[in-house]
């Protein structure tokens, strides 16, 4: 697939994923499912930017690990701060 087609695919996927994020944010049944769904989509979107727009899919693994590490770490921190009190209270 040409790089232009990859970029078009990433853009369409990002728009769709953003709509999915808003849907899950508004319609999730529980906080746990909301956090899980929204942050999973956020990490997928980050991957589309990192591998698609930034083209790190072509480069060394260590740079991909570093760049993927940021959204993963942020998502884990956000999930922990939301879900730990939630599960402790229930």
């Amino acid at each position, binding site marked *: 697939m040409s790089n232009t087609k990859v970029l078009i695919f990433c853009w369409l996927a990002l728009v769709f994923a*953003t709509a999915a994020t808003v849907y899950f944010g508004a319609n999730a049944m529980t906080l746990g499912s909301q956090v899980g769904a929204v942050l999973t989509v956020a990490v997928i979107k980050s991957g589309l930017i990192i591998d698609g727009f930034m083209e790190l899919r072509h480069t060394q693994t260590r740079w991909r690990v570093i760049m993927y590490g940021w959204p993963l770490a942020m998502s884990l921190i956000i999930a922990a701060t939301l879900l730990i009190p939630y599960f402790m209270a229930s």
Partner: protein
Amino acid sequence: MSTSSKQPEAAVLQPAASHALPGDLAMWIFILAELAAFTLFIIAFSVTQMLYPEMFQAGRAQLDPSTGFAMTVGLLSSGFLAALAVERVRANRPRQASLLIVAAIASAMVYVVLKLSEYTHLANAGFDLEYNMFFTLYWLLTLFHFLHVWLGLLVLAFLAWRCFKRGYDAENRSGMESGVMYWHMIDLAWVIIFPLVYLLG
């Protein structure tokens, strides 16, 4: 017309066939430093939300997720157009790249206009920096990102001008790639900030 612009397009449409990073290494170190700064704001927001969940829920109710959706699509579309512009430079079509960068700036202005509208609405309703902890962190985090968007727009405007002047081509594109990578970093930060501030909790 420069001699480089006469090169066959197929010969230069291999973006990063080598395993090198797009752009300068210095820009990637700068991007990591910027992400570290965003990390501090995100942790501050998350931890404070853990301490005051009801306050954050009430504060978030003042924000419109559909506006956040439109802002996000504006930014992501801008990143897409900027990535296409890099492709055009690699194909020795800097004038086309210039037009794509201008389109990227226009798309990013959707975010800027909507964000300014949101800021005005909240400020007029009294939800300013001192209203409570949610709005203090909302303003600090989103303004920090908003300032990065403005810096990114200046970078994009410079890239559009350089492309229009045929300052970049397939062989001389590192500056172009570095500027566009910075713009993608701003998208990446927003992809995490948007659900944290507008949706979760």
